[in-house]
């Protein structure tokens, strides 16, 4: 999955960094809270998860439950690229990427699963420096 090369602007410049091309998933941040799946107007985010229990680490402590993500899929044939899922996510697990070259002959292949969404994260541009921040990111 190479970053977009050529055939963009006639000068060969890539699309602007905030272009809404595809959505990437940063799995480490995802807690399977289901908010993106619930807010999506097209019902195109499919999430499966299960609960795991972590035994207490201290004497008399409480067992912790953790949600573990099994399946996270976005159906890009349905997606309308509104960005509601990215805005709704409280944990910043979803990111925009300007990649757009993933058309193909198979409609079902447009449903991207976790692996593909993880790969799209490599194409997410770095966050621009915000003058309101105290330091650069």
């Amino acid at each position, binding site marked *: 999955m190479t970053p977009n090369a050529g*055939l*963009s*602007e*006639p000068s060969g410049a890539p*699309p602007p960094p905030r*272009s809404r*091309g595809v959505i990437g998933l940063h799995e480490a941040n995802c807690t399977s809270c289901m908010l993106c799946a619930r807010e999506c*107007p*097209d*019902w195109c985010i499919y999430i499966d998860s299960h609960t795991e229990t972590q035994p207490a680490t201290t004497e008399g402590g409480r067992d912790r439950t953790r949600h573990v993500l099994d399946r996270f899929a976005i159906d*890009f*044939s*349905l*997606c*309308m*690229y*509104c960005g509601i899922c990215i805005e709704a996510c409280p944990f910043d697990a979803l990111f925009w990427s300007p990649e*757009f*070259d*993933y*058309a*193909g*002959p*198979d*409609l079902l292949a*447009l449903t991207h699963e976790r692996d593909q969404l993880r790969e799209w994260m490599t194409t997410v541009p770095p966050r621009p420096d915000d003058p309101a921040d105290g330091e650069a990111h």
Partner: protein
Amino acid sequence: MGVTPLTIGSGPGGVGQLVAAEPMRFQVNLGRDFSLWVFNVGLACCAVEFVAASISRADIIRPGKTASTPGAAQAEVMVVSGTVTDKMAVAIKRIYDEMPEPKYVISFGSCSNCGGPYWDSYCVTKGVDQMIPVDVYVPGCPPRPEALLRSLLTLHDAIVSADAARS
């Protein structure tokens, strides 16, 4: 050289199969691919992106292989761009039937892929592939004009390797 069946006119009313050798198949495919005439069925917003693709900034002609056509009867590629309503679906089927073989369909945008944002509407056909066979699905709402160029190249590759889907 193996003998590979070359299918000619495999659509409705076609003449069936013609068995041909590999070089012949490659030659025919190259001929089909040489200059694809593109016809845009512009139904909604995606039509504007198609127009943007055909003007000089991101030019359809730049890859050197495609040209716009005045009507469906002269076209090889039909690009369905926009929402297909139930009422319009009948007309799209008729336009597709008017195209001579070999013909290919690009579904441009979410609405023609599977209904898109109007997936729950009372009057939208959820995907133009419910009426006609589609060769390339381009995701986007709307897809960039460059995505259309890319999808045409994908279609070119599919034609040359004779992988283009048939009904």
